[in-house]
């Protein structure tokens, strides 16, 4: 069952995420994928995450497809203008890629080529529109395609946006994304279930499945770093403390993630696990969370 079918079956959705390497070494990546295979509904492949130059999302999605995994092709507006975005979408389709996650993308200054030109010819909302337009058999210029794709488009939302303006704008933009064609959402990492529940109540009427983001903590330092530097991520003090005091960081991290997942089962329609280098731990987390 592919991701789209899983979504419409009404089951609790599980997606994971893989960040391609900087270089051509793909063995570890494929081993990790093999470990998760069959346990998740889809695997996201990031598109030059944090604006760091590396192996591309499309190629890795294609490899995952070859290994029998349904990939979610993350596509940002940072590096490609509307010609390249549309062409890459068509290329992705002929390579067997069916799901696309439309993102604005980080600014190049956040990465390792800070002097690169920021493109942002389209944004996440207009990219979603373009995906739907391609699905209908037309490009952005209204020209007819010879053979059209049938992508399943999704988008992201940041429920932890910190100011009133930022939060309200997230909700407004979420509505725009749905109007533009988003059929599912994946969120930024969630650590506070009460806050997340309030967000979910607020967007209940949108009737679009939401997969709550789970980030695996590596250390207390990482948690503090995210609190300070990653927009929308807030790790509460007790969790930081638990990571600080534990003798077995991996075990504690797994416990925290499993607990959050259990809590999310009744709140949202699925989870999206961002293991950030701990992809091999995904199966045990799922087992602990009662998902296997």
């Amino acid at each position, binding site marked *: 069952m592919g991701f789209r079918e899983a979504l419409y079956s009404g089951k609790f959705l599980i997606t994971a995420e893989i960040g391609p390497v900087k270089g051509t070494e793909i063995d570890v990546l494929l081993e990790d994928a093999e470990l998760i295979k069959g346990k998740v509904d889809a695997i996201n492949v990031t598109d030059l995450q944090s604006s760091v130059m590396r192996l591309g999302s499309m190629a890795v999605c294609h490899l995952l497809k070859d290994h029998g995994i349904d990939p979610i092709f993350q596509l940002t507006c940072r590096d490609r203008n509307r010609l390249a975005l549309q062409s890459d979408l068509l290329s992705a389709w002929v390579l067997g890629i069916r799901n696309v996650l439309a993102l604005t993308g980080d*600014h190049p200054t*956040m990465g390792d080529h800070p002097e690169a030109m920021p493109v942002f*010819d389209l*944004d996440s*909302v207009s990219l979603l529109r373009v995906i739907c337009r391609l699905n209908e058999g037309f490009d952005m210029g209204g020209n007819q395609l010879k053979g059209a794709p049938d992508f399943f488009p999704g988008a992201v939302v940041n429920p932890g946006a*910190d100011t009133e*303006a*930022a939060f309200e*704008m997230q909700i407004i933009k979420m509505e*725009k994304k749905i109007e533009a064609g988003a059929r599912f959402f994946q969120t930024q990492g969630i650590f506070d279930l009460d806050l997340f529940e309030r967000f979910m109540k607020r967007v209940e009427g949108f009737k679009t499945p939401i997969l709550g983001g789970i980030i695996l903590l590596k250390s207390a330092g990482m948690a503090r770093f995210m609190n300070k530097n990653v927009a929308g991520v807030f790790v509460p003090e007790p969790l930081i403390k638990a990571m600080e005091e534990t003798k077995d960081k991996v075990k504690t991290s797994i416990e925290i993630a499993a607990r959050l997942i259990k809590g999310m089962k009744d709140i949202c329609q699925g989870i999206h696990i961002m293991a950030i280098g701990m992809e091999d731990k995904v199966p045990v987390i799922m087992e602990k969370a009662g998902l296997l």
Partner: protein
Amino acid sequence: MIVAEIKPFEEIKNMIKNYQKVLIVGCGSCVTVCLTGGERQVELLASALRMARKIEGNDITVGELTIRRQCDPEFIEQIKDEAAQYDVILSMACGAGVQGIAERFKDIPVLPAMNTMFLGVSDGQGTWVEVCAACGDCILWKTGGICPVARCAKGLVNGPCGGSQGGLCEVSKDVPCAWQLIYARLVRLNLQHFLKDISQQKKQPVRPRRLVREDLRLKKEPTKGV
């Protein structure tokens, strides 16, 4: 106004190293207002160059002039007699001014003393900020008078990227997120319905852009080649 800053002194000195007679031309408009290329700055640059060349034992003649606008042929015309007496003109105007002068005096090299930066406004003493990218299709009417094209680091026209923290932009932590400013202003004006409209993507202009006002033209002139 057009905001520009003066180039590093060493760079200017290097540009004019092979010349003995330099005319520095200031501009009385934008760069006078942003205190980088007006009469006073012409005077300062002239004495600094004289001094530096004197120390090197390579004396130089520096003329000083400031005209009302370097982007207007009418004002440029006024300096034609002085210009003819110099080896080189060092313009203290924006890039448009430098090119305006170069277009008029084709036999004299015209060099830029400034780095032209952006269309901006003053943001407190000694600070200027970019507020308009001259996109050619103004949408300020639906963004509460705050421009996302110029003031959002990604130029997003459909709402924020989700990267702001504490109301500040993810890209420069000392700059407010333009979309949060827009949100606050539209709420205040009770015009928040604009936030829900899906905006058309901006069209890229074909450069160089040109404005033709038929009503102001004397007669139809064909475009000139080289």
